[in-house]
């Protein structure tokens, strides 16, 4: 079980591909109601970490703990389903199913057997929050990238998960879409207090949304701390170099 008020934590987590170690994290946890930004240059293992947390990858060693469950590469189908139904994942590139905007958001509830007027109200409230209620009946395929990512956000939030995982959610979006997504995320954290892990290249975004930040370099956790402290007064020279933009993103 994760320590203290941590909802999810990685312990001794390693991942190798073809014998090449791409991730080696001794310990990293995220608490309830906390936003943890995972920073690092390209190829640092940030997305691999998120995929491990989401059980999309099997650890080569170590484990991820989420409540009473432990992901070390094997879980019963029921436990795996339980794990995945308690988290939401927003990828860098939005993936929407054929159908309307409303259908895509409702789907997350319908897969859990929740439908009817109450579910419909929740979907509408979230679409309204992300500014897409007028487009509820529009085909998902007709949306811009920013709109599609907002649908993904609404779909991720509608189930009120314990853990939210974001993989560069605003990497290719304009400032207006970024603002909507960040504000909606902040509201969610203030609301039911999910634990949030957000992978981002954007140090300004980390400062805006994250309580703590962690720097990954070449698969290793270099430094973890309060976001402002880590960005303003890094204790590791590699963090300082990253903040100064001296690492290839």
């Amino acid at each position: 079980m994760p320590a203290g008020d941590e909802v999810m934590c990685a312990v001794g987590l390693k991942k190798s591909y073809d014998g090449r170690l791409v991730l080696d994290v001794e310990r990293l946890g995220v608490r309830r109601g906390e936003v943890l930004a995972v920073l690092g240059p390209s190829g640092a293992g940030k997305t691999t970490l998120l995929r491990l947390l989401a059980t999309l990858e099997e650890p080569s060693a170590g484990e991820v703990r989420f409540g009473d469950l432990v992901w070390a590469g094997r879980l019963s189908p029921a436990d795996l389903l339980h794990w995945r139904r308690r988290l939401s994942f927003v990828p860098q590139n939005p993936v929407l199913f054929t159908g309307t905007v409303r259908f895509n958001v409702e789907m997350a509830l319908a897969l859990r057997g929740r439908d009817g007027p109450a579910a419909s109200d929740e979907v509408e409230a979230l679409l309204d929050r992300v500014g897409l209620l007028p487009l509820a009946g529009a085909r998902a395929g007709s949306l811009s990238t920013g709109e599609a990512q907002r649908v993904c956000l609404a779909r991720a939030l509608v189930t009120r998960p314990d853990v939210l995982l974001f993989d560069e959610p605003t990497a290719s979006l304009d400032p207006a879409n970024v603002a909507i997504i960040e504000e909606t995320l902040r509201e969610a954290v203030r609301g039911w207090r999910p634990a949030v892990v957000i992978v981002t290249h954007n140090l300004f975004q980390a400062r805006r949304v994250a309580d703590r930040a962690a720097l990954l370099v070449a698969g290793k956790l270099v430094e973890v701390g309060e976001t402002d402290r880590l960005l303003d007064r890094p204790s590791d020279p590699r963090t300082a170099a990253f903040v100064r933009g001296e690492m290839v993103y």
Partner: protein
Amino acid sequence: MSRKGGPWLSAVSSWSELGGIILLSLAVSGTAVLLASAVGVPLGSLLGLSRFRGRPLVVRATYTLMGLPPTVAGLAVYMLLRAPGPLGGLGLIFTPAAMVIAQWVLVTPIIIGLVAAAVEDKDRRFRETAVLLGATPWQARLLVLREARPAVFAAVVAGLGRAMAEVGAVMLVGGNIRWETRVMTTAILLETRRGNFGDALVLGGVLLVIGFLLNSAIHRFQTGEG
């Protein structure tokens, strides 16, 4: 051959004969494609969604069979259905049923291969999203198949095109018997052999128009567009 009141083609004496040939073409190819879809869509979906030992070999074999020469398929069916053959007692040789079987043999691998490729492509993109949305493995598979629907339609249309255009297999097992097993492609072949190239081209044009109308109807059904 009288051309009075007819479609002015040497191999086709009347409009009713031409209509019969067109209807038989549609009936044979349509039935073959329906039967091939009944087998090919589920098998292709299964192949696209499954990961099992030996799968690459099955995929390669399917792709190879997609290019099966019609004469080879026709010959195999002919050997099975001819009088001394294993299924000769059924009396199907030189009947439309034999032509359906031959086209089924040709079209089924095409539908399996195209459906498998389409489903596999969608699988990569949508299965992860589905499971992360809380789908059970079966719900995730159904969602992937739902996304592959347009490509499955395209696979069936490609199969229909192959069946309608095919001549070698139906000639071998049907025999191009006038009023019984003559279809558009075998009529075209007959005209060509007789040196009536103009008539062959006219029949080819009719075949293309039929194909266009069929594809338009399928497209309309699939998309709801005109």
